[in-house]
């Protein structure tokens, strides 16, 4: 716990924004590990809500295609236990966006079930609103035919078959369904796929903070401590006013500097000044970042330009299957001629697969020489000295897992023994495992990079309620 003296000092000795709305953002991702003392600090500062994102597309399409969470259940439960108990004690709402990593309906239900379990253990009876934004191909095909779906570069117009190929499709929600759920009395809102910013901006927007300041603050705080000088030390408190906001670390030993805060706009964004969100564009090109004191940065000059309402779509499909094998090589003759070796091995293994499975078989074979050019796959400049060691990864892709496994098995002796050149005594490379082949599973792909025009933030969203007080 904080020293009382220190806490009073921090809470009084600063220049405040009139009518500021305060949101605790305890971590960049639910399940990342929240600290109870950080949440205490935010609540002691008068927080109006706790808001946190629980999703990401950055880890790849497999989570959306399969509808499963990347973060494990125990980590989600730990963080929900801390956040639900503190929110309950303080009498403030808890908002969670993009439940279950990809924000599918199943991800929301999975998170709701954990929340119900936690509530039972804590002996509390919150009213929980679940917001669902998963879409069916049929509905989107209808929208597409009405001209309501537009592509974002580099993709082109959307086809019915692209929509039908998706295992799951989600639409990114804006703040409106969160605001409506809170207005209707929700203690906890668990949302499906939502923009990272919308879940954090919802309460400030609802309570009358400036739109530019609210969206910009949310953008800065979306990854929790990422906008602080020491990102490993917990999340942040956003304080949002009419035309300015402050961002402050929840850890007393950490800082939000004008540099760390402004640099966050660069992170994973293709444009650092203009961000399209549901219902508008945040323009931060005129923003100014200054110290308030030695821990807090104030931002002014953020602008919100209202636009016709759009929701971005994300969809992912499952493709072919892969099996991998690995060998290590320290043979100096091979290391001195790696490109030649790669090309010969590629030829030998391709022949082997074609001869074993027939010329019509569909497959892809990729060999990656880690220690040489495995990361880029690009030609190595002439004159580059040989490495000490390379790892060769064999990746075969085929229409079924069984076929990919059988192709790897057929290649096994050749992968193990192919010499650099014809006539050299048969080598044996270093397999680290037995069996050597490792079924890797399915290849997943993101299919959509499109927006759908809607009447408002509710048209494609469904809200369902679980009132634990009624069930108790």
């Amino acid at each position, binding site marked *: 716990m904080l020293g009382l003296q220190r806490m009073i000092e921090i809470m009084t000795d600063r220049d405040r924004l009139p009518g500021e709305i305060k949101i605790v953002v305890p971590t960049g991702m639910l399940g990342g590990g929240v600290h109870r003392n950080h949440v205490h600090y935010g609540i002691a500062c008068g927080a109006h809500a706790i808001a946190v994102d629980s999703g990401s597309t950055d880890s790849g399409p497999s989570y959306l295609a399969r509808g499963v969470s990347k973060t494990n259940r125990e980590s989600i439960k730990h963080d929900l236990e801390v956040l639900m108990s503190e929110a309950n004690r303080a009498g403030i709402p808890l908002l969670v966006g993009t439940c279950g990593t990809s924000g599918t309906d199943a991800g929301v239900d999975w998170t709701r079930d954990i929340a119900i379990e936690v509530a039972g253990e804590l002996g509390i009876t919150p009213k929980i609103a679940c917001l669902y934004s998963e879409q069916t191909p049929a509905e989107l095909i209808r929208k597409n035919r009405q001209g309501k779906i537009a592509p974002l570069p580099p993709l082109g117009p959307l086809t019915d078959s692209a929509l039908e190929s998706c295992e799951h499709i989600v639409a990114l929600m804006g703040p409106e369904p969160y605001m409506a759920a809170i207005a209707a009395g929700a203690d906890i809102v668990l949302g499906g796929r939502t923009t990272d910013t919308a879940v954090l901006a919802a309460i400030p927007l609802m309570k009358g903070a400036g739109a530019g300041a609210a969206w910009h603050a949310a953008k800065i705080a979306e990854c929790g401590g990422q906008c602080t000088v020491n990102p490993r030390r917990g999340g942040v408190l956003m304080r949002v006013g009419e035309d300015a906001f402050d961002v402050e670390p929840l850890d007393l030993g950490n800082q939000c500097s004008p540099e760390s805060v402004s640099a966050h706009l660069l992170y994973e964004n293709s444009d650092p*000044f203009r961000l399209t969100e549901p219902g508008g564009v945040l323009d931060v090109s005129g923003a100014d*970042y200054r110290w308030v004191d030695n821990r807090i940065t104030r931002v002014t000059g953020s602008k919100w330009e209202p636009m016709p309402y759009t929701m971005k779509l994300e969809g992912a499909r499952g493709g072919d299957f892969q099996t991998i094998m690995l060998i290590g090589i320290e043979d100096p003759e091979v290391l001195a001629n790696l490109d030649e070796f790669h090309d010969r091995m590629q030829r030998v293994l391709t022949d082997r697969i074609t001869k074993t499975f027939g010329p019509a078989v569909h497959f892809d074979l990729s060999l990656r020489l880690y220690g040489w050019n495995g990361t880029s796959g690009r030609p190595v400049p002439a004159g580059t000295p040989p490495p000490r060691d390379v790892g060769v990864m064999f990746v075969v892709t085929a229409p079924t897992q069984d076929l990919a496994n059988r192709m790897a098995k057929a290649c096994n002796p050749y992968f193990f023994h192919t010499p650099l050149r014809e006539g050299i005594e048969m080598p044996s490379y270093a397999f680290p495992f037995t069996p050597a082949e490792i079924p890797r599973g399915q290849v997943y*792909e993101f299919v959509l990079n499109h927006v759908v025009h809607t009447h408002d933030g509710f048209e494609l969203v469904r809200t369902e309620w679980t009132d634990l007080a009624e069930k108790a």
Partner: protein
Amino acid sequence: MPKIRDVCRHVRSKNAGPFWVTVDFFFDSEESFKRYRDTAALGPELFAHLFGTDAKLVKRVPVDRLHMIKISYPRAHPQGWMRERDMHAGQQFARLLEVDID
């Protein structure tokens, strides 16, 4: 002739969604930044050549207050495709370091 690595204190790359990569060039001084802010050496053709992207879609935004330039380009293949070697595009910056900037 200076290379990118000689005039930048830090260069990094990362996915900006599944279809885009964004590269941040942080220059080592205000002077370097001003000198190279608009250099043709960091033009779209460089990205087309090194990353197989469509030069017409490459976006370039200088950020004066941070002495950096952000350049974003569409991936030649979406994140996670069958021959993916860099899921988060975190190592794509490396091939830029040796590029001549003058």
